[in-house]
């Protein structure tokens, strides 16, 4: 990933073009949001609750329609082009780990035998190949989240949307999953949009941080974290990391003031 081109030279994957979203009761969830997503980007949407970051994710996922503005994909989107990880692991409790990861293929009417290798590969990627036939209830919170990530990655999607996936986990598990996530992204080369309210998480993971403010939800600032990947524990303790965190914190503070 260190060799990847600077962000503005990569081909465009999709764009959010001055999108507004108004909910019934005239609640403006999102105002004039624009975002260009290029292949290989790791973008964080950072902001306080109610800033519309989850709404933005739902619009990009196609789960709801913008009130005005457009969401455009450079190429028509196929069924497995999008992977999603929610705040909860969102696994089917009645199905084994392997069956849960199989779901995206199953919905494309592919037989289990024909995608067995991909499923095993995805489980290896998240380090759970030994737990194929376990049921979700037998796993810890972090392991369940890994299954959820494996399911999102198994179709080799072009874009993965993650909605505060690690917010409910303890810090040790979260750091480990942050490291592993970067590792996985580097290996399958996908694009990620990551919603978070943690400054540290956004700086560690992303090459771009979109800072958002609430009431109405809008983009305040876009920060670039021009630090090379792979990033590991060394980066987490470097002075550059601290400087980026400070910049992101200040932007977030501005966002809070703008909302107040």
């Amino acid at each position, binding site marked *: 990933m260190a060799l990847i081109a600077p962000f503005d030279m990569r081909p465009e994957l999709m764009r959010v073009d001055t999108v507004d979203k108004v909910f019934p009761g005239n609640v403006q969830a999102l105002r004039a949001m624009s975002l260009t997503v290029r292949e290989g980007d790791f973008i964080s949407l950072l902001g306080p609750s109610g800033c519309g970051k989850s709404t933005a994710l*739902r619009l990009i*996922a*196609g*789960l709801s329609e913008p009130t005005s503005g457009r969401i455009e994909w450079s190429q028509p989107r196929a*069924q*497995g082009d*999008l992977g*999603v990880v*929610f705040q*909860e692991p*969102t696994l*089917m*409790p*009645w*199905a084994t780990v392997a069956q849960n990861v199989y*779901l*995206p293929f*199953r*919905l*494309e009417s592919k037989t289990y035998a024909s995608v067995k290798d991909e499923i095993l590969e995805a489980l290896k990627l998240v380090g759970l190949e030994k*737990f194929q036939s*376990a*049921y*979700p*209830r*037998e*796993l*810890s919170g972090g392991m369940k989240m890994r299954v959820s990530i494996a399911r999102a990655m198994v179709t080799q999607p072009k874009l993965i949307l993650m909605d505060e996936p690690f917010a409910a986990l303890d810090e040790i598990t979260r750091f480990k999953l942050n490291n592993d996530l970067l590792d996985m992204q580097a290996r399958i080369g996908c694009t990620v949009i990551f919603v978070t309210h943690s400054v540290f998480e956004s700086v560690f993971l992303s090459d771009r941080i979109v800072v958002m403010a609430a009431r109405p939800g809008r983009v305040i600032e876009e920060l670039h974290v021009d630090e090379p990947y792979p990033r590991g524990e060394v980066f987490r303790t470097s002075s550059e990391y601290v400087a980026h965190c400070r910049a992101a914190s200040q932007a977030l503070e501005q966002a809070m003031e703008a909302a107040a």
Partner: protein
Amino acid sequence: MSVTELNQPAAPTVDAEEARRARARRIEKTARWLLPLLVMALMIWIWDRIVVWNDIPHFILPSPARVWGSLTGDWEILWDSALLTGRITLMALAIAVVGGAGLAILFNQNRMVELSLYPYAVILQVTPVVAIAPLIFIYVESKTVGMLMCAWIVAFFPVLSSTTLGLNSVDHNLRDLFRIYGATRWQRLWMLQLPSALPYFLGGLKIAGGLSLIGAVVAELVAGTGGVGTGLAFRIQEAGYRLNIARMFAALAIVAAMGVFIFAALSLLSHMLLRKWHESAIKRET
């Protein structure tokens, strides 16, 4: 119990609290079947003493021994009747399941159908079956069909309402996930809604099992002596006319045993289907 814990070696020593807890568990395990049996023995003994000490004639209150005698002596008659009542009960339960779950799926798939029919399902449920049954037997020629209808009316509603609840209790994130992956309506029903509804359906099924027995008994009582009316309820009525109170008790005991058997069988079925994944079937360590 998680997989990670399974790999750890068992603790070598047991502390006093754990030992106490283990002892309490063992005692409870025995008490679970021993205490009800003791209560039964005690009640039968008191019953017997009341009859003997007060010299109560058997056509008012027979002694337990006489009831036992009727149970064994009239076994062939009673067993045939039990088979008939059991057959009606099971058939009614089967159509209650098919009808209740089928209606629930239909309602779930088409909101307009639900809005049109649901009020009538409620009306059918809240009207006492004893009041409907005589009407049914006026218009329905076959006694068997009439009895099945009565039993179905009582039994289908718990299946319908709990399955409906289950079909609507799908994790909303999973629903979104299915949408993102472009699932069809049938894929969503088959792979997401039906498994989600299974625990609710099984809960409704346990209630419906008992209710279909009640429905069958009520229908027999209303249907009276004509035609196929030789089920257990009919035996109770007939024995009552003849002041054969012992046989009434014997038939009643068989009806109760059938109810217990149905409940136990459905509980076992529920446990088998859910034990791998559902919270209700999982034994916690503490």
